[in-house]
């Protein structure tokens, strides 16, 4: 039971907004301690796992490209394109992005877009420009809300359509685990049953996006 205190350290540390890197190390120490490991053993285990997971941070290789394009005015250009369109709104823009993102992810092209390379330099500036074109210059608080919605739309789109692609890591994990329990399935069967959820995610999130438009207009009006 006491090894669960590591989880409690995480919950309390994150809620108290302590520095998360420290909280994570403390949580590892706590659970490791109660599992009977010495502090040095936990540090070594953490170090090994950190080294094995370097691929997670290797994705920051896109930052120099994104930065250079921003330096040359990409965000401004993305915004200008939206300003020139008629009838554009944050909701409609993000619904269109969602269609693109869900469709490409479902055929295995998830890595072609993402928070660093797409949302920050292109989609978020477009969304802010759309709000400005429709309801006038947004307040800073409204801008934050729009950016958060743009980021959320990317996550929702990816999460609920990635399993439609048969070679996705999570699909293969399911096939592997089930076969170890003597249930042999073709990955395709799992992928097919991800489709209803993907459609529901589109229905629910795009409805929220259209309601978001109304909220933005009310905020701008008040």
């Amino acid at each position, binding site marked *: 039971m006491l090894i669960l205190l590591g*989880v409690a350290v995480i919950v309390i540390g994150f809620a108290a907004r302590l520095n998360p890197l420290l909280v994570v190390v403390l949580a590892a120490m706590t659970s490791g301690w109660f599992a009977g490991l010495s502090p040095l053993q936990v540090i070594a285990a953490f*170090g090994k796992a950190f080294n094995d997971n370097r691929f997670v941070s290797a994705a920051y290789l896109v930052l120099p490209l994104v*930065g250079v394009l921003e330096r040359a005015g990409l965000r401004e250009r993305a915004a200008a394109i939206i300003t020139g369109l008629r009838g554009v709104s944050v909701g409609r823009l993000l619904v269109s992005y969602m269609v693109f993102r869900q469709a490409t992810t479902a055929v295995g092209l998830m890595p072609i877009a993402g928070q660093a390379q797409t949302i920050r330099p292109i989609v978020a500036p477009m969304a802010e420009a759309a709000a400005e074109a429709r309801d006038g210059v947004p307040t800073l608080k409204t801008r934050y809300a729009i*950016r958060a919605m743009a980021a959320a739309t990317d*996550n929702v789109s990816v999460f609920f359509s990635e399993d439609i692609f048969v070679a996705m890591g999570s699909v293969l994990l399911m096939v592997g685990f*089930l076969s170890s329990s003597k249930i042999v399935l073709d990955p395709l069967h799992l992928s097919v049953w991800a489709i209803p*959820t993907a459609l529901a995610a589109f229905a*629910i999130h795009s409805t929220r996006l259209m309601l978001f438009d109304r909220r933005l207009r009310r905020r701008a009006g008040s």
Partner: protein
Amino acid sequence: MIKLGAVYVLAGLMFAGFAAFSALDRGNRKRFGNAAFWALVALSFLAGDRLGDLGNGVLVLGLAGLAGLGLLGRSQPPTTSPQERAGLSREFGNKLFVPALILPVVVATGVLILKPIQLSGVPLMDAKQATLISLALAVVVALAVALILLRQPLAGPLQEGRRLADTVGWAALLPQFLAALGAVFAMAGVGKEIGALVTTYLPVDTRLAAVAVYCIGMAAFTMLMGNAFAAFPVLTGGVAIPILVGHFGGNPAVIASIGMLSGFCGTLMTPLAANFNLVPPALLEIPDRYAVIKTQIPTALLMLIVNTVLMYVLAFR
């Protein structure tokens, strides 16, 4: 064969560049804190395999210490002003999108076309890591095109990359820290312990209750562990296979597939999924660390209900 090692060298050199420019940045009061932080990340990428487990552990403590003591500052690397950017964006027009589109095109080419290629029996790239290798390749090609087409200075990639890296700050390393925590938790048996609690104390005697326990359990467990992959084996082995499939005769493909997607509802609501939920607010310069999670919660909760209903309806026909 192109392996992940090449990508790590490239990443290591990039972070070393961030460290060097940070150290030289007299405008940042905490420049040596930033330099030390990025230098440690560079060391990890360039020499992590030679440091030994304890060496890597000490490196991690160094990163956590620098961040926890507030030794990192936001830098202001030389970049263009908003006015200059407006001018440049008019001058370059849609040419600006060429490098931005090269990136996804090269990634897609790598994943769809280059990955299956074999040269005299040896695959061109390590298949398991093809996405990351393709991404690195795409960045190099797109950067080269950007520097020439948009006439950008040679120091641009490192200075601009450092600008964005410092915008995210220590949060950039949080996803990798959490991945490592997951491994330590697994070693300590945290997952098994929670799984035992769920399966022992929750009601699974009617079909609807069992479906709800599995779906909601997947989401809750994922929130605690940070990813659905850790939750899936525990709850599928503990609830789904013995009870939903074994006792109630449900279709395992439907149950597993929708169970995993219920876990993803949890991913949308937890700060432990930092690369999706905490890095984006930093990247988008939103002051509230939890702004993206708060935005996702309504969609996630509605989707959890939908998944529960879908499983109940589709798995037992």
